[in-house]
C-alpha cells in the first residue's frame, strides 16, 4: 500500500476532530452537570425526564396547597374550640339555673348571660380569615349567619365544601360546612336535598334563654313575644296594638295549619338558596306538592309550612291563611314584614338535652378537622418523600456522572496528546533530511 502525506494528514485531521468533538460533549456534561441537554443525547430519556419534572412540579404544588389547607384548618380548629367553650358555659348556666336556689334577679342575670353567649356564638359563626368567612360554604364573601329584624338567625351561605387535590387524583374536603355545624342540615342520602340531622344551635340557645325567662310551654314568635291562645292551645293572630285580630264575622283568627301552629320558612333549593315564585315552574324538582301560585311579583319568595305544604299566597305574593269565613284570607306577615314563626318553648331540661346533642356535633366536627389535619400532614410527608424520590429518579436519567465524565475527559485528553505527538514525530522524519 502506498501511503501518501494526504492520507496521514487526513487521518490526523479526522482523528483530532473526533477527539475534540467528544471532549466538547464531555466538557458540556461536566460543566452543566447534565447528561441529556438535547433530545438526541438520549431520545429514550426525554419522556421520563419531562414526566418526572412535571410530577415534581405537581408535588411541590400539592405540598404548598396542603400547607395552606392546614393553616386554614388550624384556624377552624381554634374557632371550634371557642365554640365548644361557649357551649359549655351555656350548659353550666343551665345546670346552675336548674339546681341553684336563685332569686329572680339571679335568674334574669343568668338569662342575660346566655343572651350574651348567643351573640358571642353568632360572632364566632361569622369568623373570617382574611376577607373570607369560614362557615359560608362557597359564598366566602357572604356573612353566613344573619339576624333578621325579628330575631331569627338565617343561614345565607351555601352547602359547598371546598376540596383540594392533595395527591394526583386524590381530593380531600378541607372546609367545615357551616350549615351542618350550626344548623344541623346536611345531605345525608345524596339526593341533592338537605336533611335535618340535628337541632339548630342558635334556636336551641334561644330556647334556653326563653325557658330561663319562664316562657316554657308558651307559644312565642320569633322575637320571643308570647301569643294569646284559646282553650285548645291554638294561638290567635294579634294586631300591632296587641288586640286580637278578627275576621269579617268578628271571630278571632287562629294561627293553625294542619293542626300545628304556623311556622313558615322559605323554600330553599339544593344549594340552600331561597326559591322565588318565578323559579317554581316545576314543583316536583323541589320535593313539594304542585300548587297554584298566583301573584304579581314573581320575585317574592315561596314559603312552606313545617309539614312541607306550600303556603297559600295572595296577589302580592305574600303568604296568607284562610280565616273561618269562606274565601277570606289574612296575611301571614307580622308587623316587620316577616312570616309568622310560632314555636312552643320547651322545658329547660329538654333544651339542655338538645344542647348536648349540638355540643356532641361540634366536638365530632372538631375531631373530623383534627383527623383531616393528620391526614394532610401524612400526605404532605408522602409528597415530600415522593418529590425527593422523583428528583433522584430524574437525576439518574438527566444528570451526568461527574466522575465518569472527568475520567473520560482525561482519557480523551490522553488520546489527543498521543495523536498529536505521533504526528509531530512522523512529520519530523522526512527523506529530505537524508538526501
Amino acid at each position: 500500500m502506498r501511503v501518501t502525506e494526504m492520507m496521514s494528514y487526513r487521518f490526523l485531521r479526522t482523528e483530532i476532530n473526533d477527539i475534540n468533538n467528544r471532549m466538547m460533549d464531555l466538557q458540556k456534561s461536566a460543566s452543566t452537570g447534565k447528561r441529556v441537554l438535547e433530545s438526541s443525547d438520549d431520545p429514550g430519556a426525554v419522556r421520563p425526564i419531562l414526566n418526572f419534572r412535571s410530577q415534581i412540579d405537581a408535588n411541590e404544588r400539592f405540598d404548598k396547597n396542603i400547607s395552606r389547607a392546614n393553616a386554614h384548618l388550624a384556624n377552624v380548629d381554634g374557632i371550634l374550640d371557642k365554640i365548644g367553650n361557649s357551649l359549655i358555659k351555656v350548659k353550666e348556666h343551665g345546670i346552675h339555673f336548674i339546681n341553684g336556689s336563685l332569686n329572680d334577679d339571679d335568674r334574669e342575670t343568668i338569662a342575660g348571660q346566655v343572651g350574651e353567649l348567643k351573640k358571642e356564638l353568632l360572632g364566632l359563626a361569622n369568623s373570617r380569615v382574611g376577607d373570607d368567612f369560614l362557615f359560608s360554604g362557597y359564598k366566602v364573601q357572604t356573612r353566613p349567619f344573619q339576624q333578621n329584624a325579628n330575631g331569627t338567625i338565617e343561614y345565607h351561605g351555601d352547602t359547598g365544601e371546598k376540596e383540594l387535590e392533595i395527591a394526583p387524583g386524590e381530593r380531600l374536603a378541607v372546609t367545615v360546612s357551616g350549615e351542618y355545624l350550626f344548623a344541623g342540615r346536611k345531605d345525608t342520602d345524596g339526593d341533592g336535598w338537605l336533611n335535618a340531622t340535628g337541632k339548630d344551635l342558635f334556636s336551641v340557645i334561644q330556647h334556653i334563654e326563653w325557658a330561663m325567662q319562664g316562657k316554657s310551654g308558651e307559644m312565642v314568635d320569633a322575637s320571643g313575644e308570647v301569643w294569646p291562645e284559646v282553650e285548645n292551645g291554638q294561638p290567635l293572630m294579634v294586631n300591632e296594638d296587641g288586640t286580637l285580630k278578627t275576621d269579617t264575622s268578628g271571630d278571632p283568627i287562629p294561627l293553625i295549619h294542619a293542626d300545628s301552629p304556623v311556622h313558615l320558612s322559605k323554600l330553599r333549593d339544593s344549594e340552600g338558596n331561597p326559591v322565588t315564585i318565578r323559579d317554581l315552574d316545576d314543583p316536583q324538582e323541589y320535593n313539594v306538592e304542585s300548587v297554584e301560585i298566583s301573584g304579581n311579583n314573581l320575585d317574592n319568595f315561596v314559603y312552606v309550612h313545617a309539614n312541607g305544604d306550600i303556603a297559600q299566597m295572595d296577589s302580592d305574593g305574600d303568604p296568607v291563611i284562610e280565616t273561618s269565613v269562606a274565601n277570606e284570607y289574612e296575611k301571614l306577615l307580622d308587623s316587620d314584614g316577616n312570616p309568622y314563626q310560632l314555636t312552643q318553648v320547651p322545658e329547660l331540661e329538654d333544651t339542655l338535652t338538645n344542647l348536648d346533642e349540638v355540643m356532641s356535633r361540634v366536638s365530632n366536627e372538631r375531631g373530623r378537622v383534627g383527623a383531616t389535619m393528620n391526614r394532610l400532614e401524612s400526605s404532605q410527608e408522602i409528597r415530600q418523600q415522593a418529590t425527593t424520590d422523583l428528583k433522584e429518579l430524574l437525576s439518574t436519567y438527566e444528570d451526568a456522572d461527574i466522575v465518569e465524565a472527568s475520567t473520560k475527559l482525561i482519557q480523551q485528553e490522553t488520546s489527543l496528546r498521543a495523536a498529536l505527538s505521533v504526528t509531530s514525530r512522523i512529520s519530523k522524519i522526512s527523506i529530505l533530511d537524508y538526501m
Partner: protein
Amino acid sequence: MSGLFNSLHIGQSSIFANQKNMSVLGNNVANANTEGYSRQEVQMEAWPTVQRGDLSFGQGVKVGDIARAHDRFITDRLRDASEEYGEAEGKATPLTELERIIGIDENSLAGSIDDFFDAWQELTVNPEGEAERNLVLRQGGALATRFRQTENSLAGLEDSIDSRLETELKNVNDKLQQIADLNQRITQATSTGHNPNTALDERDRLLQELSQELGSKVYINEKGAASVYLPNGPTLVQDNQANQILAGKSATDGLQFTLKSGKTETSLPSRSFGGEFKGYIDVRDKILPEVKADLDQLQHDLIIQVNAKHATGTNLDAETGLNFFQPVTSYQSDAFALDDDGFADADGDLLQLTLNGNQTEVGVAESDTLEDIRDKINDQVDGVLASVVQGENEDTYRLKVVPAEKDATVEVNTENLNSTPNNLVASGNVFATVDGQAVLQVALNEPEKISAGRSDAPGDNQTALEIAELRDAQVAGSNKNATFVDAYGKISSDVGLEMKQNEFERESLRDTLNQLENRRDEVVGVSIDESMIDLQRYQRAFQASAQFVTTVDEMLQTLLSIKR
C-alpha cells in the same frame, strides 16, 4: 562515425526523457496538496531498434505519454458515497435547529404546560383571589405565546431551508456549466490525441461535489464526455450543454424547482433530488410537517379539554358556558337552525352521520329538541362531539357536529329526514366537512371571567380543580393515552431519535468516505517520499546520460584528432 553520432542521439533522448520526468515529478510534488489532483506519470518507451546485418541496435528512449493515475471503480464509489454522505449531512443542519426548537429544558413548551396547570392548581386554594386568577390568565397567555414562538421558529426553519437551497442552486448551476465546458475541452483534446489530464481531474472533482449536493448520476460516453443526470432521470448536462435548475417560491407550497433546458422549462418535483438537497427537502417535507401536525394535535387537545371543563363552570359574573381558550375556529360547521318552538319536527326519521366514511344513523323524534338530538349523537356515536350553539339571531340555535379527532371528517346528511320541515332551516352547506388547524389563544381577558367553580360563589373551586386535574389526565396524543406533557415529550423524543440516527449515519458515512479517499490517494495521490526517491533516480539517470554524451564527445574528439 555514424555510430557515434547515433550514440549522441541516444544520450540526447535520455537527457530529454529524464528532464521530462523531472518536470512531471516537480508538477506532482507541486500539486501534492491539490484537491482532486491525480499523480501523473511519464511513460517512457525505447525507440524501435535498427537492424544492421544480424545485429539490432537500440535507438534510445522516447516519451510515449504523460498519463494520469486513475481508478474508475474508486471514482465511482466515491461519487456514490458522497451522495449518501451529502444526504445525511443535508439533514444534519436543519435537524439540529429543529432539536433546539423542540427543546427539553425547563423553558420548553412542556414547562409552559406545567406552569399553566400549576396556576390552576394554585387557584383551587383561593378561587376568588385576583392575583391567582391573573396568574391563570398570564400562564395561559404564556402558553399561547410559547406555541406561537414554536410555530414561528418552525416556519423560520422552513424559510431558511428554502433560502439555503436557493443560494446553493447558483453554485450548482455554475458547476453544471463548468462541467459542460470541461466536456468540450476534453472531447476536443481527446480527438486531437492530447491528454486532458487536468481537465479530467477537475471534472472528477466537480462531479463528486455535484453528487454530494444533488445526488446526481454520471455516465461517461465513448468520446469522453460526461452526462449528468438527477437520480430519477432528468438530464442536467449533456455533452457541452448544461441545463439550469431554477427555483421559485409559491405562496402555498414553498420553494418549487424547474429545469430549464434551452428555452423549455419543466417542473422538477422535489423528490427528484438526492444528496444534500434531498436531506434538506426531507426535513422540510417529511419531518417538519409531522412535528407541526403533532403540535397541532397537542394544541387541539388542550383547547378541547380545557374548554370542555371550563364551559361547565360559572364565573364571578354568573356567566356560564364560556370558553377559556378560543375555540378551534375552523371547526365551525353549523347546521340546522330551528324556528321558535325549538323542536325538530322530524318524526321517526334518521339523521345520517358519516364519520371518516363510515355511516351511522341517529333516530330523531318529533318531540326532540336540539339538546335531545345533541345528547343522542353524543351517546350513540363515538368520535364526534355535538353541541348546541347560538345562531346569528338570539332566538335561533344550531346543532354543531364536529369530529373529536383532528384529521377526522364528519358529514351530516339531513336528506333522510322525510318530513324535512320548513323550520329545519339550513343555510348554505349543511354540516360541512371540517378539518383545520388549531391555534391556542386565551379567550378571556378579565380575571373575574374565569370560571373557577360550578356556581358564581367566590369560594367555589370545583371547575378549577377539574382543570388542574387535567395535568395528569391521559387525554392527549394520537391515541389519547398520554398526558399533555407526555405528548410533547413524544414529539421531542421523535426529533431526538431522528437526530441521533442522523449522527450515526453521518459518522459511518464519513468513515466510508474517508476510507475511499484514502484508497484513492493510495492509487492516484502524490507521495513526497516516493517522489523524492524518483527524483534521485531521474537525476542520476540525467547525470549518467550527460556523462555518456561527454564520453561520446571525447571519443569523437579523439577520432577527429587523428586527421591532424
